[in-house]
């Protein structure tokens, strides 16, 4: 039996409750519309970048001109006119970055408060340092001093280009080269800001680091770049959150995240992606084309991606691990929820190069409304990866009969001692479970939220506590209206 009409109605109603859709009234400064070498130079000049940085951007831009937009993902959208967008937008007066919170436009601070991310250190959740990126620029980075004492560098990538050029030169593009793929190459040319993190050897970062991305200006693409380096024996947990106003046109977000873990280092990267998904008819929403990749360069290093993807009209995202160091570990825990007309094509690549490398993939997809959700993944065991192990579990849940769920895993094994296991299931939201919950007094919407949270449990438990609670609520909200 298919989901009952009342169930479907309840999930659909949920689509109307995007809570971060307001616009901040603030004067912004834009680069001229469109994309050209001049725009790339404009962005670089705005940031007062050194020559080498501009050269890198220009190389990327010229390469990008020769590239084709990838067409293999199961997502369908009208041709993007890359000339019809602003590639740089910043609140007025950001020629010089505010030195302290007092210098930040109070309207901006209010925006982040409304989003539940107060930037004043007194008000912040203890133990979480935040880099707030608003359109193209980093507004403020909190707890810098405290982190500095531990030797941790946590700043905007623009600052890092100025203050830590050697490190940026060494690592930028070392995991995602500027010519990697269409979207990453575009990002390399026009990235405006983002976060830079360096954890020195043996340091366990004393607090969770977090970036909060906000697209505000209309017709503006956001192209942030994040670079995290965990030196030998260090540990960092990094959280990323994103929202955008509700607008009828689509906006482009093409980010690049590069992680480097050296010997015995561990990076835990968590994302709650809640970009505006568009309305019930599929108007508007963010096009989210993101390249995230981690390099486990050292022995015994570990990179763990956890993502909760509930937003965006289109998600194209494959956080991956290159397991180069012997005994290194890669993990990918993912929840992708699509409702109404959202489309998500997301998954991971686990590239096993070193000996005894292990990876684990747990992907949960929930499709409701008229949405399409695809898990796409690659597990590749190279000939030298003696003793490599992978376990993959992909489960899809369908709510209503107008949506689709797809699973496209690629598995390549070139070493006989490797053990690779992949399992996938697709099923509908169980009417039996729904009835059981309702018999105990839960209304349909709460029952769906509870059941879906149960379905996602294995992933949710990998999120840091503060995020997990937030994510659980988001799971319910994203599916509101899908069932009754």
């Amino acid at each position, binding site marked *: 039996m298919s989901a*009952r009409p009342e169930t479907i109605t309840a999930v659909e109603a949920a689509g109307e409750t995007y809570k971060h859709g307001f616009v901040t009234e603030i004067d912004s400064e834009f680069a001229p519309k469109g994309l050209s070498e001049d725009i790339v130079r404009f962005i670089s000049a705005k940031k007062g970048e050194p020559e080498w940085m501009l050269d890198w951007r220009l190389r990327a831009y010229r390469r990008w001109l020769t590239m084709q937009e990838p067409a293999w993902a199961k997502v369908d959208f009208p041709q993007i006119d890359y000339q019809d967008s602003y590639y740089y937008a910043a609140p007025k007066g950001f020629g010089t970055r505010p030195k302290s919170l007092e210098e930040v436009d109070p309207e901006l601070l209010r925006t982040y408060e409304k989003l539940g991310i107060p930037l004043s250190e007194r008000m912040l959740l203890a133990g979480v340092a935040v880099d707030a990126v608003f359109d193209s620029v980093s507004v403020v980075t909190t707890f810098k001093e405290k982190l500095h004492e531990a030797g941790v560098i946590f700043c905007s990538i623009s600052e890092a280009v100025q203050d830590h050029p050697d490190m940026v030169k060494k690592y930028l593009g070392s995991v995602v080269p500027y010519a990697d793929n269409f979207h990453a190459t575009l990002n390399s040319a026009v990235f405006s800001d983002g976060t830079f993190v360096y954890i020195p050897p043996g340091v366990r970062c004393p607090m969770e680091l977090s970036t909060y991305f906000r697209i505000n200006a209309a017709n503006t693409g956001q192209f942030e770049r994040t670079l995290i380096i965990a030196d030998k024996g260090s540990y960092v947990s990094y959280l990323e959150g994103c929202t955008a106003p509700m607008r009828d046109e689509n906006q482009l977000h093409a980010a690049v995240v590069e992680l480097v873990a050296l010997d015995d280092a561990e990076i835990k990267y968590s994302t709650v992606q809640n970009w505006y998904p568009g309305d019930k008819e599929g108007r508007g929403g963010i096009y989210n084309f993101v390249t995230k990749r981690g390099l486990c360069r050292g022995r015994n290093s570990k990179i763990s991606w956890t993502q909760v993807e509930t937003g965006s009209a289109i998600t194209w995202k494959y956080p991956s691990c290159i397991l180069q160091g012997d005994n290194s570990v890669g993990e990918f825990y993912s929840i992708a929820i699509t409702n109404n007309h959202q489309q998500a094509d997301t998954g991971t690549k686990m590239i096993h190069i070193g000996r005894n490398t292990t990876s684990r993939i747990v992907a949960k997809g929930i499709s409701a409304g008229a949405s399409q959700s695809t898990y796409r993944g690659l597990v590749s065991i190279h000939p030298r990866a003696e003793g490599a192990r992978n376990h993959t579990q992909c489960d899809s849940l369908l709510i209503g009969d107008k949506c689709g769920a797809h699973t496209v895993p690629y598995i390549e094994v070139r070493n006989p001692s490797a053990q690779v296991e992949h399992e996938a299931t697709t099923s509908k939201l169980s009417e039996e479970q729904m009835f059981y919950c309702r018999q*105990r*007094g839960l*209304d*349909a919407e709460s029952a769906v939220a*509870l059941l879906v949270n149960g379905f*996602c449990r294995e992933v949710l438990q990998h999120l840091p506590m503060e995020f997990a609670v937030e994510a659980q609520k988001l799971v319910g909200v994203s599916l509101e209206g899908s069932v009754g």
Partner: protein
Amino acid sequence: MGKAMLEIKNLHVSAEGQEILRGVDLVVNAGEVHAIMGPNGSGKSTLSYVLAGRPGYDITQGSIFYRGEDLTPLPPEARAAKGIFLGFQYPVEIPGVATMTFLKHALNAQRKWRGEEELDAMGVMKLVQREAGKLKISADMLKRPVNTGFSGGEKKRCEILQMAVLQPLLAVLDETDSGLDVDALRLVGDGVSALRTPDRAMIVITHYQRLLDHIVPDFVHVLSQGKITRSGGRELALELDREGYAGEQPPERIPARA
């Protein structure tokens, strides 16, 4: 006797186009325990689902009144909030949702519906643990996902735990004894008996009379081919146990005697 808690009149129910209940009449008053017995396929579980409001069952004739109110238009969660509890014959597994979490959501959803104050996590935990202790349900089991990986006995004990926590007015227990060994049966039977109060009624659906040694009924009914064909006291259950349901089955379904 006061006003009936449950009054079923000439109830006809179909599922997937097939008539299963063909005119059931039943009156249950507060404080009473009614046993409904009958052969497989006689419509016992259907009756329990219809009382709880499971989608997919069509009432083609007749009425169900609960505490003076027509039950039929209410969704399952409203019936639950008004005090109707169904102990499932096959309790459903809900992976990823801890039993304690589930109970908290259920209890508070019902309280909210009734306009009562919701209990905080600590309050729920205390209440659940107290009841769990009586049923020998360990704290570990409460952390495990609802019914997931539970043995048959654990599932049934967990159903009774939910009943104890949710404190319904009308409990419908569908084959609560199936799949239980002697010890588990006693535990469950004692658990249910402890919940007998003058303001609470129970309908105990069972195939065998052995459960009725532990939950002694006031009335026993035989449901056969979608109708209550006989009603009586405790002794009827014993008689059925001795002589089987042969007389209650259509002739072609009587097994040949060896």
